[in-house]
């Protein structure tokens, strides 16, 4: 029903007009752009904060400032998983853009393209029974956690078969089965919710006495959120109660139109903001990682997960990344300089990892082609499924407002309103 454009293999990884503007680096401003331009070999892979708590793991990824280049070896199976997950994220999102412009989905749709190494790197280092908590940019987190692409696409199409029956939409993806706690549309509101899941794990272990409870919860949010009170409230509580939390800041430099250094003040002694430095201030490690490199993210994630699982408490990870598209599909994206976009586009995590996997002999050209094809087929199937799925019936209207429908109260005839004949056909007169 459509043609997939080759986003996967374009240097910028996106089909907006970013790719042809790699020149004029001298016009870049601020540290951010320098960071984007650093030669890969000099990029800080992940850096422990020198003060306060000990690093997540001494001498491996966490090395004070010194760049450790490639992380520990992975198996071909892991390489396949990581590559496929990133490609799926990208293809799914680019398909969303197409479907949005074709009028198949509406509202605010925030695409994740460019940030895949973070979702894949963190979530694929977690277990199926671990929890994640996301933001309004949540499709790809859900995919990485194993939520079927069919259900997510159908949700975006507003169909009955959507993962939330069409009642959530783009910014409210939930899956109890996959321990995906949402999909939270307002900045920062998911962070305390994720904290609650981590509290539940500790409670299960320490108050109920279930020794097997060792799940962790990763909460994702952006650089803009780190100026919100909920972030600080939760850093404090997570550290105070030693909760198994991983706070993942996806620093893509832009809170809609607000550039990160314009919104966030630097720590004492610095000239540019550094979110990861807020970890030690709250008694947890703060780790800076190249969010365009899935292996580096994965390594940091593995250490943070292990730490949380062992009951050693939370970790704050700042992943430096970039979104290749506007804030949402409704964003004209006029403020970000094309040079900046191009520089980040050149660091697209997918071609980067593909090259690595080929160079290291983890994947063959043929395997990569097969994965790409398989992903394309999955995304096309998701679209077809969503398109052909039935719309919600009116009967859904009054369902799921209350877990216990007694919450609708007692009608004039003395019975509970939900027992009225029209209730399950969505007749609102039933609750008058």
């Amino acid at each position, binding site marked *: 029903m459509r043609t997939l454009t080759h986003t996967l293999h374009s240097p910028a990884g996106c089909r907006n007009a970013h790719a042809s503007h790699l020149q004029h680096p001298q016009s870049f401003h601020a540290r951010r752009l320098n960071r984007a331009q650093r030669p890969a070999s000099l990029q800080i892979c992940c850096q422990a904060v020198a003060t306060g708590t000990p690093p997540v793991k001494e001498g491996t990824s966490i090395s004070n400032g010194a760049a450790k280049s490639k992380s520990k070896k992975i198996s071909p199976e892991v390489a396949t998983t990581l590559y496929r997950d990133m490609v799926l994220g990208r293809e799914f999102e680019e398909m969303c853009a197409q479907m949005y412009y074709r009028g198949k989905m509406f509202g605010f749709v925030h695409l994740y393209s460019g940030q895949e190494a973070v979702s894949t790197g963190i979530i694929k280092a977690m277990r199926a029974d671990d929890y994640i*908590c996301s933001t309004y940019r949540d499709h790809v987190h859900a995919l990485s956690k194993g939520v079927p692409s069919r259900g997510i696409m159908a949700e975006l199409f507003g169909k009955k078969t*959507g993962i939330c*029956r069409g009642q959530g939409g783009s910014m409210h993806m939930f899956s109890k089965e996959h321990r995906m706690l949402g999909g939270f549309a307002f900045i920062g*509101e998911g962070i*305390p919710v994720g*904290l609650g899941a981590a509290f*539940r794990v500790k409670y299960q272990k320490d108050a109920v006495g279930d020794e097997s409870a060792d799940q962790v919860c990763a909460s994702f949010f952006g650089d803009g959120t780190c100026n919100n009170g909920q972030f600080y409230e939760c850093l404090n509580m997570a550290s105070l109660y030693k909760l198994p939390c991983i706070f993942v800041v996806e620093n893509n430099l832009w809170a809609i139109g607000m550039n990160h250094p314009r919104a966030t003040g630097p720590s004492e002694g610095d000239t540019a903001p550094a979110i990861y430095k807020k970890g030690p201030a709250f008694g947890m490690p703060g780790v800076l990682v190249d969010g365009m490199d899935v292996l580096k993210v994965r390594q940091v994630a593995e250490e943070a997960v292990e730490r949380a699982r062992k009951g050693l408490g939370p970790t704050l990870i700042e992943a430096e990344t970039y979104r290749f598209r506007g804030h949402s599909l409704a964003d004209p994206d006029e403020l970000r300089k094309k040079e900046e976009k191009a520089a980040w586009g050149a660091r697209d995590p997918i071609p980067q990892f593909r090259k690595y996997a080929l160079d290291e002999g983890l994947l063959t050209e043929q395997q990569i082609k097969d994965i790409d094809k398989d992903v394309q087929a999955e995304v096309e199937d998701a679209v077809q499924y969503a398109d052909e799925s039935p719309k919600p019936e009116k009967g859904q209207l009054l369902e*799921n407002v209350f*877990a216990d429908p007694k919450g609708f*109260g007692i009608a004039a005839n003395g019975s509970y309103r939900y027992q009225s004949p029209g209730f399950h056909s969505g007749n609102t007169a039933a609750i008058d």
Partner: protein
Amino acid sequence: MQGRSCGLCGQTRFAEARLVAAPKTRRHVSGRNSRCITRAAASGPKLMWEALREAVDEEMEKDPTVCVMGEDVGHYGGSYKVTYDLYKKYGDLRLLDTPICENGFMGMGIGAAMTGLRPIVEGMNMGFLLLAYNQISNNAGMLHYTSGGQFKVPIVVRGPGGVGRQLGAEHSQRLESYFQSIPGVQLVACSTVANAKALLKSAIRSDNPIIFFEHVLLYNVKGETNDNYYQDLERAEVVRQGKDVTILCYSRMRYVVLQAVQELEKQGIDPEVIDLISLKPFDMHTISASVKKTRRVIIVEECMKTGGIGASLSAQINEALFDDLDHQVVRLSSQDVPTAYAYELEAATIVQPEQVVEAAQKIVQKQMAYA
């Protein structure tokens, strides 16, 4: 029950309440892990805070997923002692003292509820929960729906609210109006020792998010409780049967109305008094049966007149029972002003018994004049 001792807020009131009531509690709590708290307190009259405490204790004992979180709910025992010494029995994790961060710990409670706990989240003063409004509205209220029914949020949000005695505007909030339009939450207001315990027990067991209103001036009301009794959260209580006029009220206004009723009885007026209990949704069965009998309605509330409980209730009665009314619905609400500190101004802000008497006389006599 309206003595000054229980009208003082926070530290002062607490200190005073400790003098009055704490020794009594200590009698029941014989030591760590004591199980006799409930049994000993269950017999004989008790104060409302003790009844609420029993409700929490009994439900925590029955169900290991029931827990309490909030400011000073543990070691301090709650600002109005509702969780007094329970941490000794259940430990610091089940009686979780949180930092002062309402939005943070409310969200934590919601996340814990989504993943299998039944948290009771206390607002040290209900007004503080305005800082948690986003979590209560977006997540407690709407998340069951937006998740397509996948996640439940069985949380009880409770605490002292209403207009106390000269606590100043911020500690004298009338929050019902703010919370009532949140979809997916139920609002419950307790008013007696018996219903406080039975309703709180039901609220803890409910799978819905319940916002549970306790009135700051009612914690030292005395009364009996029924053992092992759970009361429907959705059902109103008929406090006094009568034929001349239906007076709908809730929380502390129940006592203001009952004071007025004594005067009305002397004047030969026979009002029916209904305590709404459920502020959202309304029990239209009890209300309409009464309205059809008396054909006249006075709503007495502490809530704001604009956008308040009375506003919603009046609209529902007009829509559903217009033909059964002989007089327009009369609303006695608190004034749309911040609650002043000065005694006289505060008194002028909230409804007084004389206003209820006057309204009832007017509405009943007008009817008599027509007859």
